[in-house]
């Protein structure tokens, strides 16, 4: 599974990386990410998740070849 992160999340993770561990949904994905960097807990709790052009819910079933986008709170404008 490929992971892309943006903005403040880049202080905790590489902008793009491959996750070898299994994550069946975004709840599990969050746990896998915390195993990489536990300090990201607070920001991860406020993030949304997306695949391609749509947000996904926490129970959306993730596939091995998905590219998951992790989206921190917006701060445009």
């Amino acid at each position, binding site marked *: 599974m490929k992971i*892309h992160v*943006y*903005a*403040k999340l880049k*202080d905790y993770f590489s902008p793009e990386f491959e996750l070898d561990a299994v994550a069946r949904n975004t709840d599990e994905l969050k746990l896998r990410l915390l195993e990489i960097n536990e300090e990201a807990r607070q*920001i991860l709790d*406020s993030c949304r998740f*997306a695949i*391609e*052009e*749509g*947000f996904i819910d926490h129970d959306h079933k993730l596939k091995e070849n998905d590219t998951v*986008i992790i*989206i*921190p*709170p*917006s*701060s*445009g*404008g």
Partner: protein
Amino acid sequence: MEVNGSSSETIEVITAEPLDVVDLLSQAHHPGAGAVVLFSGEVRDSNKGRDVACLEYESYTPLAVKMIHDILAEAREKWGLRVAIAQHRIGRLSIGESAVVVITAAAHRHEAYEANQHIIHRIKHEVPIWKCEYFSDGAHQWGNNCNC
């Protein structure tokens, strides 16, 4: 110019190029619109008492583009806008440059003002675009949330 309010479909809503506010405004005139409201969000030289050197914006562009188009379409429908345009810049911006422009044109000013505020509020708070402030002392900080 198209007269059905869809002229903004051809405008790139996320761009790395400097925003041409005058050109965007020139595309917002419509025979059925008696009011045109233009908002330009520009880079300020300070934030919370700290001197700002520049800002950098990034976006998750595929989703940001879709969301901005959806927000504009909803606003057109809700307020009966003749024209609704939004363009957000990404990349590094200097003080005084425009980071985002929203233009709304409607029959009367009430709808144009209200729709404009609604659109910019949603772009700031919902669309995956992020601002990083670079301060004069060399520090930088990603915006966790909009503070405007």
